[in-house]
């Protein structure tokens, strides 16, 4: 039964623009889809491999900066710029992951060290004024174009971006789903559940942790590539710990034991502040209260309420 939920949701999402009238609703949902993608790839590392990474926002932000800089300053084609952006994220994740996992950093220690690396990268971005424009951030005016038989179409307008965001989410989801359904997913499960046992059953714990971290981070980078062009603006805030915390919140709210839970969490937490019209301070309090409630009362998250209590193996 639950297997069809994502397909039904996709069908609804494809049809939704027929019913959405206002641009502001489109904007909320588009942001929701992009953040949901981040939450899904984060859950590959966190929920499925058991590693609490604080590097996700860094991967996202670095890719956003690199694509924007290549396109705006060096006149690259947007689609070509995705390559070096993701390659850079993969390299960073490889180095950070290799260091953490080689030193067998777990749980709290892994979280803190990835946080430190993430901050280092943010500080580079903040201080490298000549390239990144520092704390002021960069405006991104270029618009990616898509090839079509009748000439290139610019990615602009609420409806088009809605579908772009949906496509990013689908790609992220399918990649994670394929990985988890394969032998790799079994190795991830072994690591999440008991590293030592996994190792005696022949799982190369180092390799598969690294694989999870790199795949998850690159997928976060993919969202970053598009995000800046959607908002038209990039700032160091993208790489902040707060951004990582937001992603974690979405996953906890949606449910850590599935791929679909984070989609719900991402959409709900993005939409909530807009649906309930509150001042910024109250919003943050509400947000915190919801999280505490979720962690204490429904540790499996929203999706976990419907799902049979069991991690995909």
């Amino acid at each position, binding site marked *: 039964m639950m297997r069809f939920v994502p397909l039904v949701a996709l069908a609804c999402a494809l049809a939704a623009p027929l019913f959405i009238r206002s641009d502001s609703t489109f904007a909320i949902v588009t942001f929701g889809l992009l953040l949901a993608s981040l939450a899904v790839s984060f859950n590959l590392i966190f929920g499925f491999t058991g590693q609490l990474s604080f590097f996700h926002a860094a991967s996202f932000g670095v890719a956003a900066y690199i694509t924007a800089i290549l396109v705006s300053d060096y006149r690259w084609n947007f689609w070509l710029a995705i390559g070096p952006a993701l390659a850079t994220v993969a390299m960073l994740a490889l180095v950070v992951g290799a260091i953490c996992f080689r030193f067998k950093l777990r749980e709290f220690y892994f979280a803190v060290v990835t946080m430190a690396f993430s901050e280092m990268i943010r500080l580079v971005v903040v201080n490298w004024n000549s390239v990144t424009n520092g704390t002021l951030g960069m405006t991104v005016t270029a618009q990616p174009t898509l090839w079509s038989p009748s000439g290139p179409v610019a990615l602009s307008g609420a409806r088009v971006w809605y579908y772009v965001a949906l496509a990013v989410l689908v790609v992220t989801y399918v990649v994670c789903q*394929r*990985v988890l*359904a*394969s*032998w*790799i997913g*079994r*190795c991830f*499960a*072994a690591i999440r*559940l*008991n590293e*030592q*046992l*996994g*190792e*005696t*059953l*022949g*799982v*190369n*714990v180092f390799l598969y942790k690294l694989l999870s971290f790199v795949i998850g981070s690159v997928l976060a980078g993919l969202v970053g590539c598009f995000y800046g062009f959607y908002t038209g603006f990039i700032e160091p805030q993208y790489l902040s710990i707060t951004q990582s915390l937001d992603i974690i919140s979405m996953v906890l709210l949606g449910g850590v034991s599935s791929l679909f839970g984070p989609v719900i969490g991402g959409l709900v937490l993005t939409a909530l502040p807009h649906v309930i019209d509150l001042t910024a301070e109250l919003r943050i309090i509400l947000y915190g209260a919801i999280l505490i409630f979720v962690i204490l009362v429904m540790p499996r998250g929203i999706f976990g309420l419907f799902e049979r*209590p*069991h*991690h995909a*193996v």
Partner: protein
Amino acid sequence: MLFEARGLTKRFGGLTAVSDVSFGIDEGEIIGIFGPNGSGKTTTLSLIAGMLAPTAGDLVWQGQGIVGRRPFEIAEMGIVKTFQNPQLFPELTVLDHMRIASHLGFKRALGARRLFTLVWPWAAADIESGADAKMKDMLHLCRLTEARNEKAAALSYGAEKMLGVAMAMMCDPKLLLLDEPASGLGQEEIVNLEAVLRDLRAHGVTLCIIDHKVGFLGRLADRSIALAHGAMIAQGATRDVLASDAVVEAYLGRKHA
């Protein structure tokens, strides 16, 4: 000789947990390791399985030194160890556990071609059904067929230990290292365990089994070694080892007049 330990020594700070232990294992044998609590039995098996690095000594597997290999490499070479206390995942079923343990089978069968199955999952269909058949066999062998859909949390202690063995068997070990499979088991479960272990041997698996009680392993093991305070105090035919003065003294703390 399938396996040989030479001068195996492990120190934890000032404590010598395993001290200059040497023994060999032939293919198809059942080797018993006896010793009172804290005598270094678990440490010896952990050293063999690569989970600890020896302070000194050599481990030779099929003519090849394996000191310094990582545990997963050693598992891949055919040495798999079970844990003294079953390391299970309460929320998963017995079948889920078996599925997680099927990883090495895939690796051996497909190698790098596994990457192709990421985009074309059907390429692994034969191997997947082969793995399913093997899971079935192993569950049957370990008397877990009826419990296959139970959560690990609902299993009896005896069944938990059996599941540990069944998972290890999914890795197709040539040498299976069992850490006190009989401890905490009832009389009936021990009889059952004995039958399972005989079946495993009939499957061509060489067994190295720890027990600190003398009972069931005395009947099962072809040869044994006995440890006390990390040192090997006797080795040879099981009956002789258990009857030797050194062993009797180690267990009773005094010479048995």
